[in-house]
């Protein structure tokens, strides 16, 4: 990462031995009291990348193409645009009323419904959703899968309404996580048993930090399959599902931080 370059001021970088231990922007040097120009531009470009990820648009036609022959359909939440979506999380958690009939028509006997939600990072969904689903499918050849829902302006809880309308026993929502400055394309997965409107976040299990420097598709898919098997056996997800034995859940998720 360019922010870790030593400051240009001296021949010897006094922070050299410490940089290996953190990706924090330590030892940036000073121009007077301010950031040196390179450090300033590095920061602003990282912020620009994060904002582009938040405000970007997912290329769902392309993802649908990549998923074939798996069937999929594109649906909208109740948030009409990005600005409303950011202000009104409640709208992003509900399906657009006009889109519900198309979904209900697909009601069936499904082990699993997959929902792809743009969340807060279009970049994450564009990069990782299709390959992650491919990795998952290899591992669950005998599962009855509902058509994949590709949802615009959507948050995690939208999966509750989708899963209920489809009649699926489990719903896994793949969602673009809130971008940080170092990683703007991190994908998360939220798994919910017996999805229905009004499920609490404590009734879900989360796999976080799926990106090039985080969990790989294989790791994430292994963990998801493990969680799904546990969920099916115990007929629940959430805090009561002991995840201590899970293969990899990503970096520890914080209670007070909403990554969706």
């Amino acid at each position, binding site marked *: 990462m360019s922010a870790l370059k030593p400051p240009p001021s001296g021949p010897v970088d006094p922070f050299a031995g410490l940089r290996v231990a953190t990706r924090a922007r330590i030892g940036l040097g000073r121009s007077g009291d301010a950031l040196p120009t390179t450090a300033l531009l590095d920061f602003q470009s990282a912020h620009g990348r994060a904002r582009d990820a938040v405000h970007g648009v997912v290329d769902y036609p392309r993802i649908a193409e990549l998923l074939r022959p798996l069937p999929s359909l594109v649906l909208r939440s109740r948030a009409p645009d990005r600005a409303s979506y950011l*202000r009104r999380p409640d709208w992003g958690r509900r399906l657009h009323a006009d889109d519900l009939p198309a979904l209900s028509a697909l009601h069936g006997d499904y082990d699993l419904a997959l929902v792809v939600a743009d969340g807060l990072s279009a970049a994450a969904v564009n990069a990782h959703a299709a390959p992650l689903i491919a990795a998952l499918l290899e591992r669950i050849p005998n599962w009855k899968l509902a058509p994949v829902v590709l949802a615009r302006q959507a948050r995690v809880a939208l999966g509750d309404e989708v899963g209920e309308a489809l009649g699926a026993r489990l719903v896994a929502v793949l969602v673009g996580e809130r971008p940080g400055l170092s990683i703007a394309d991190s994908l998360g997965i939220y798994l919910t048993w017996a999805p229905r409107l009004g499920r609490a976040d404590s009734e879900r299990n989360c796999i976080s930090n799926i990106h090039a420097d985080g969990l790989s598709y294989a790791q994430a898919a292994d963990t998801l399959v493990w969680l799904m098997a546990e969920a099916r056996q115990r007929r629940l997800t959430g805090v009561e599902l002991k995840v201590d034995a899970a293969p990899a859940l990503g*970096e520890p998720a914080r209670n007070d931080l909403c990554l969706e």
Partner: protein
Amino acid sequence: MAYHHDLGVQRHRYDDLKTLLACASPRRSGDELAGLAADSDERRMAARYALAELPLRTFLTEALIPYEDDEVTRLIVDRHEAAAFAPVAHLTVGGFRDWLLSYEATTEALSALAPGLTPEMVAAVSKLMRNQDLIAVAAKCRVVTAFRSTLGLPGRLACRLQPNHPTDDPLGIAASTLDGLLFGAGDAVIGLNPATDSVPDCIRLLEMFDALRQRFEIPTQSCVLAHVTTSLRAMERGAPLDLVFQSIAGSEGANRGFGIDLALLREAHAAALSLKRGTVGEHCMYFETGQGSALSANAHHGVDQQTMEVRAYAVAREFKPLLVNTVVGFIGPEYLYDAKQIIRAGLEDHCCGKLLGLPMGVDVCYTNHAEADQDDMDTLLVLLATAGVNFVIAVPGADDVMLSYQSLSYHDVVATRHLMRLRPAPEFEAWLARMGLLDERGRLPPPGADSRALRQLLALEGLPR
């Protein structure tokens, strides 16, 4: 009781006091999300006229959240000091604003008044104040606290050094800490948000910070911002804990969402006091708050988010904290949409906290999905420094790599101290001088390659692994 105001040809009606307060609030996304905000600017102004005419003592008889239902309300009512309130008891909310801005409202008068004010009175008057008023009134307040350093003295600006790391790697945390010390950060506290909230991890981190502090004889305090129950267990096991931290909110229900109540905070406060680790004072609690936390816990009782925030300060006040800060832009755009709302909220929280007698600091910050950037943080920092904020928070290069949000950079603290002629806490300033980090004018210039402090602090042997 309902309230009315005629504006133009229209009569505006507000069903009760909390509706009036919500409608009088400056527009913000959290109140819109809750369905509490005025639906037009004119209705908002009619509410402000009505609020301006409201006797201040109304808040002593009309509870926004019933006394029987909520222990925060009970705390507010039971702790109110009528004698302290007497000088302003005859005023309306509008008259109270005029008085706060008057030359009569001196530092001493405001200090004496604080125990006579309730959060609701303070929130109400702030809704009639412009940003300039919030700055001017806050600048007259002085709240001094102490543990190993003395904070809140005039002409000083302190800083929490926040050396967060995504996996709590000891060397990584030490790296961010040492970087900050070289900028003169850390006089308010060296305070880490741990990645995992477990008792053994908390103890390990507390021991690491304590060893670092003793090794360099730094006159400051450290804090691992774990849950209060984790801190209690750590103290039971003899950990070197300086400050007990907890996130708090303005209703019993919202605090339950944080897994706390007043009794638990009392237990932790007593335990930390008994350790007697402070050298120049015994303020040993640290609280964080933020507008929107009550709504996000679905425990706001139909009260606007700024009033709920100020009610959290009544909880803080009970425990004589060393530090309180609002994490103003952290919660996201559904509560504070853009820089205009974040800046306004930061100034409100600071002013209201100070009026209630709290040692207020601010985490000047934003997330990547809010309409804000570092330019806006520059603006808010200068405004808060002008308002006499006790402390701000800084991280390396303004980038918190654990919580994925942007705060201030260590650079910003140095720049603002120099620009506005503000100094670190006196004990810490003396330490910086001993380390050779200050020049003859008391400034902290960039350390040269031959800097003694650089060599000493960054010597790798003895650093935690």
